[in-house]
């Protein structure tokens, strides 16, 4: 599903973000990505949906070679990848319904399909009754669930979550984790960057630990492993 081979990434300003990363993630896996800020987690994630391009090495996602990929093929790749961020990235002037529908409109789905699918995913994240609200009227946890609904609306094979619980209190974080586990159970591969020791140590899954642009540890059912 996702395969990286000796990937290096140097930014134009000379910062070396990844310094030879090799990893294989199989379909349906749930992977935590841990490590301190600046360890290369964000770059690792950005390489997967081609926000950034590897400087050397190879990156393969959904059997597509992302290093050779032409820019015009990037949108098609992204339609198979859902992304969720710490700051939700919802559009404040649109309702919850419109926020999710927007993601399907811009990839030119039919209105009939959009209506059906939006209510379906809002139901899945438990916000069907708040479809007409705007993001500011929702709690942080609810907003993140909207963001997740938007990310999975197009049935992505991979869901990337960049510190999805970073802005949330512990109780809400657990709700989000539960939701992510459900999505994972239905077959979606999940890659989640996180700083939450509790989550990693409680919901045991594969842990990839990064440090200085390298993978320093990769274990199934691993621990967070950092004293924080």
């Amino acid at each position, binding site marked *: 599903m996702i395969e990286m081979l000796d990937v290096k990434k140097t930014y134009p300003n000379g910062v070396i973000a990844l310094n030879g990363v090799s990893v294989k993630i199989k379909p349906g896996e749930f992977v935590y990505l841990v490590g301190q800020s600046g360890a290369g987690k964000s770059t690792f994630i950005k390489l997967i949906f081609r926000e950034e391009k590897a400087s050397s090495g190879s990156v393969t996602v959904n059997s597509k070679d992302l290093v050779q990929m032409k820019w015009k093929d990037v*949108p098609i790749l992204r339609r198979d990848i859902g*992304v969720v961020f710490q700051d939700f990235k919802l559009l404040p002037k649109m309702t919850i319904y419109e926020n999710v529908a927007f993601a399907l409109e811009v*990839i030119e789905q039919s209105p009939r399909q959009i209506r059906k699918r939006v209510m379906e995913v809002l139901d899945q994240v438990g916000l069907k009754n708040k479809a007409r609200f705007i993001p500011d009227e929702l709690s942080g946890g609810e907003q993140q669930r909207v963001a997740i609904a938007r990310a999975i609306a197009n049935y992505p094979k991979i869901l990337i979550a960049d510190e999805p619980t970073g802005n949330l209190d512990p109780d809400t974080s657990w709700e989000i984790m539960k939701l992510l586990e459900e999505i994972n159970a239905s077959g979606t591969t999940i890659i989640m960057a996180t700083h939450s020791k509790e989550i990693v140590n409680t919901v045991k899954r594969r842990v990839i630990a990064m440090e200085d642009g390298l993978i320093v540890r990769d274990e199934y059912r691993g621990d967070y492993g950092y004293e924080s």
Partner: protein
Amino acid sequence: MVMKVRTLKRHVKEGLKSSWRNSWMTLASVGAVTTTLLLVSVFLALMMNLNHVAQNIEEDVLIKVLIDVTATDDEVEELGESIKSLDNVESVDFSSRDQELKGLIDSLGDEGNVFSLYGDDENPLNHAYIVKAVEPKDTITLAEEIESLNRVEKVNYGQDVVENIFTFNNYARNIGLILIVALLFTAIFLISNTIKITIIARRSEIEIMKLVGATNWFIRWPFFIEGLLLGILGSIIPIALLFTGYYFLDQNSAMINQFEFITILPFNPFVWQLSGIVILIGAVIGIWGSIMSVRKFLKV
């Protein structure tokens, strides 16, 4: 690239929405386009009509070759042949001194009767060849070539009129072009700024569109449509003025046309063609302005 009708509708709606939202910038850009196109249309109308007049005159421009009075009939014949052998000569007609005298008398009307006093042998005029160039603009060079031939006393043609019109046209064209190019750039700049504001206002929308896999063209289209709209809105007033102004001119053209060789181009199709050009320029600067800012902001 086939676009769905639904998608096209969406792009048009988005484009209209943002023009409406930035109404002041929209107004400024449309104003700049309007000013530019007004100048372009007045200038083009003037240039095209001047060219038209110049052409009319040029077509009537004949070269009169006065033959040396002492030339023998053979030499006259020989000169005729050598003129014919030159490049760019369309026709060569011989006009004897008697015909010349008759023409002079006719052209002067009553006062010309004085000249009828000249008897056949006292006619002071020369035999002449009337030469017409294939291309009117070659008249001057052709006249110079003929002047260097044997037995030519003098060459006359409407050099002053033709040269003056050409010089005036050249000056007008250069000054007009500089002015128009400067205005065009101002208009493009203002349009690209308007679009830039729209893009900045929609940065987060664009970010999400990219994230969920909208194609780059899908993202660009609304901005192109906005630019196009600004350009075309700007061409409405110039075209309206062009129609009324030229209609007025056309109605009063009888006054202008008292000089037979000065005619203005007919209202139809000239105004329609010019309007087409104006609206096309409007559309091009609109799209150009939007391309400039979209390219910078939507780097992929």
